Each structure stands twice: as structure tokens, then as C-alpha cells.
């Protein structure tokens, strides 16, 4: 069902934990759907210099969090913002179709953490697609 990469990131997730005085925190998902993802970032000179996550959810949600945090660590905020769920899924060597929404959550969670940082800094948050738009792009319906 899952690729080896998914299993590896599920079994040994990278960047698990919290950053006590994080510069930005994002949280997405809800218990109804069975996924909650929380990402903490430390931003230095517009670069993500530390990142941690906590996730409640299935194996692919945990693996997606782990992979997404790996992919944006060391990136500028602009680069990090461009991370798509497809890129997360691809880096995981694919996700089962019904699990694509987990990668969407990861994208959204990074966005949420970045915008939280921007708000705290007094900047306008960047415009986000809604979850449903993102999921629909991947023809997985999640209501």
C-alpha cells in the first residue's frame, strides 16, 4: 500500500517536536477527518532555519509532515511557499489516491506557519488556495 519512503518517514519521522518560541506556527486539519497537523518554524534572515512538527493522523499524514519539513528546511520563505503537495507526494515516491489529502494538509500547514510568521511581523499574509480547491486538483474529494 505505501512506498518504502513513506514507511521510512512514518517509522522514523524527521523534525518531530515543537519549537518553544517559534517565529511561526501553523495548524490545519480537524479531529473529524482524523488529521491534525501542527508545524513550528524558526526564521532567520527570511530563511527557515529550524522546523518541527506534531501530527495526529494516519501513516501518510505523519510521513507527509516529515517530508514537507525536510523539503523546506533551509529554504527562503518564498521558496518554501512554493512547495506543492504534489512535490511532497513525489518525494515520498507516491501516495495512494485516497491519501493524497495528507500531502495537501502538509502544503497547507507550511503555508499557515509562514503566514503566521508574516502576520506576527506585521506583513500581509500571502493568498492561499482553500483545502478543497487543492484537493479537487487531485480529484480527491474531502468534505
Amino acid at each position, binding site marked *: 500500500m505505501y512506498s518504502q519512503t513513506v*514507511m521510512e518517514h512514518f517509522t522514523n519521522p524527521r523534525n518531530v517536536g515543537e519549537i518553544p518560541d517559534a517565529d511561526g506556527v501553523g495548524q490545519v486539519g480537524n479531529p473529524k*477527518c482524523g488529521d*491534525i497537523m501542527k508545524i513550528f518554524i524558526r526564521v532567520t534572515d527570511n530563511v527557515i532555519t529550524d522546523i518541527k*512538527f*506534531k501530527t495526529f493522523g494516519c501513516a501518510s499524514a505523519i510521513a507527509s509532515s516529515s517530508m514537507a519539513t525536510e523539503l523546506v528546511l533551509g529554504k527562503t520563505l518564498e521558496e518554501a511557499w512554493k512547495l506543492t503537495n504534489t512535490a511532497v507526494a513525489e518525494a515520498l515516491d507516491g501516495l495512494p489516491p485516497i491519501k493524497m489529502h495528507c500531502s495537501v494538509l502538509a502544503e497547507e500547514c507550511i503555508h499557515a506557519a509562514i503566514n503566521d510568521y508574516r502576520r506576527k511581523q506585521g506583513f500581509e499574509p500571502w493568498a492561499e488556495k482553500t483545502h478543497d480547491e487543492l484537493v479537487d486538483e487531485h480529484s480527491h474529494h474531502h468534505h
Partner: protein
Amino acid sequence: MTKNVYLDFAATTFTHPQIVEAMLPYFTESFGNPSSIYSFSDRNRAAIQKAREQAAAVLNCAPAEIFFTSSGTEADNWALQGVAWSHENKGRRIITTKIEHHAVLHTGQFLAERGFDVVYLDVDAEGKISLDQLKKAMTKETILVSVMFANNEIGTIQPIAEIGELCRERGVIFHTDAVQAAAHVPIDVQAMKIDMLSMSAHKFYGPKGVGVLYIRKGTKVGNFMHGGAQEKGRRASTENVAGIVGLGAAIERTASHMNEEGKRVAALRDRLIAGVMTRIPHAKLNGAPGSGRLPNNANFSLIGLEGETMLMDLNAAGISASTGSACSSGSLDPSHVLMAIGLSHELAHGSLRLTLGETTTQEDIDYVLDTLAKSVARRREMSPLWEDYLAGLKKA
């Protein structure tokens, strides 16, 4: 992976080697069509008759009241549709429960789309229906009551004899899905006044792909599988002789040691439950306690955790288990059963079902306890929900 600890017997059992042995001659030697008239099929006819008697003996009915199907699902479909289509002139109400297997629920939905009035009884926190609510729901238009004998997720056993009594008094047909119960707990269709009952061989160490619908003599039930005149013209298709032989042999074998085996697995299950409750903080047992549930069933909700995560951690340790979490079923809604007993979404998503069987040992249980305790501790560490839950506790 060296360990292989199977704790999903409620999903399916292995076919016992003795049963496979009993089936083998019917593949290659005695393969004739039982509905033919030549002597070559005599042995097949006799074998089917024997299986009918073996099944009847366990239910306390007549062999002629046993009809072989391809599964528990088919038996459930047949029971509901067979009654619906042949009693629609009398009435269109069908009463069932919120915690039935999908074989009943989705058939009910199909009938509801075709004008039947399908009513779903609530259950209490342990998963039991209320006889009062049932009584009130039984209008004159009621043609069928279908309440499962024991639940497949939480193991809760319903007050079947009382339901049977209520139905008999009102002349309403009573069907029970006994797929989880048959051959594991005592069933007596006379004493319990059951008119129709579904079962499936692969839940009691028989083969997959064969089941039974018991239909009390005189109960008007239309056909579901239309075609040839097999099963006295009531269920078409060339008889699956090997499968039927397997079902018969398996129900006889499993029922014959029901009491001892029931006690043995119940003791192991209680060890498992006690272990979880003491070693895992804030664990919750779902379903009825003690003899109110199937002897082999344990179902927990572990707050802060998502079911699939636990399954995958257990799987990595060679343990096969099940969850009512949405993620494992391909839908996003968690188990309708866990929601019906009043769990929050958090708890419903964090459920774990461990069901024991003939090969389960105390060593298996202790191994699961160790593995589970480690997984839970580690995964809760990375769960924002667990964090929130602890924070909530502190505030309270």
C-alpha cells in the same frame, strides 16, 4: 519480520487444516453437479445434506431450513430484499440498528431508495439497543426487524431472545446477522424465536465464499439470487460443494468446543484488556464488559492516537490488527459503530480492535501489550491532540 501474531480473527479466520482435508475430495474426485440425476453425484448430494444437518444442529432448526449462500453478505442481502419484495403489499417499514454491518446498512439504503421506510435504532454507550425504542418503532407497516446478534467491531451481544419475543408477539419477521456469533456463542433459533439468521463460514475456521441463510419454515421470503432450481428453487447457482462441505465441517467442529474455547480466549482477552487499562494511560474499552461481549473481542480507544498509526506500528512488529478509523477503510468518516455508541471523533479515530482465535497464546498477548505500550507512548509524543488533551485535563 520474524514474529507473526494474528489478532484479526473477527475479520477472517484461517480455514482449519481438518476442514481443508474434508473439502479436498470435492474438487477433483466428487465434482458432479448435485442437481443432476446420475449416481456420480450421489456423494455430492449426500455431502450437502450432511452439511445442512451440521449447520441445523448448531442452530437447533431443521436441515430443510438451511439455505447455502456465497457469504454472510449475500445472506444479509437476501434476508432484507427477500422480505422487502415479497411483503411490500403488507407494509414497507424495516427496522434495523445504527450499528449493523454494511451488508445490512447498505442493503437498507438500497431499499430506502426504492420506497421502503428503513428505521435505524439507536444503541447505548455499550452498543445495546433499547427494547422500548424497538417496541415504539414497530408500527403496523413493519415487515421486518433485523438486529445483529453480536457486533463485529465492539463485540456487544444484543438481547436476541427478547427481540424475538417482541417480533413473534406482533407477527413481524425477525432476522439476525449472526456472522460474528455463529459457532462462537450458543444460538437456539427456537428459544430465541429467530425467523432468519445469517452466517459466514470464514468466521469459524471454514472457507471464505460460503454462508448460510436460515429461513424458518413458513416464512415468506422472495428469492435474491435468481436462476436455476438449486436449494429447492430458492437460491440459484451450481452448488459450491467443497465450500458447503467446509462450512458444515467447520461449524460442527468449532461449535463442538465452543464452551472451552470461549473460556480460554475470554481469559486471554481479559488479560489483554487489563494490560491495556493498566499500562496505557487514559485508555478506554469500547463495548460491553464481560459476558456482554463476544469472548474473543477487545476494542479500545486511545485518545491522541489515530488508528492507522497504531496498526502500522503493530504491523512493523508482526502483529495484524484492525481499527474503526476512517483512514483504513478508504472513507474519511470513522466507524459508524463507534459514533453510534457516542464516541467523539477523536476517540472514534483512535480505536484499535484486537480479536483473538484458536491459535492465540498468552505470549502473543504479552507481546502485543509491550509493543502497543511503546507505540502509544512514542506516537502520543508527536500528537498535537494528545498535547491538547493533557492541557484540557490540567485545566479541569
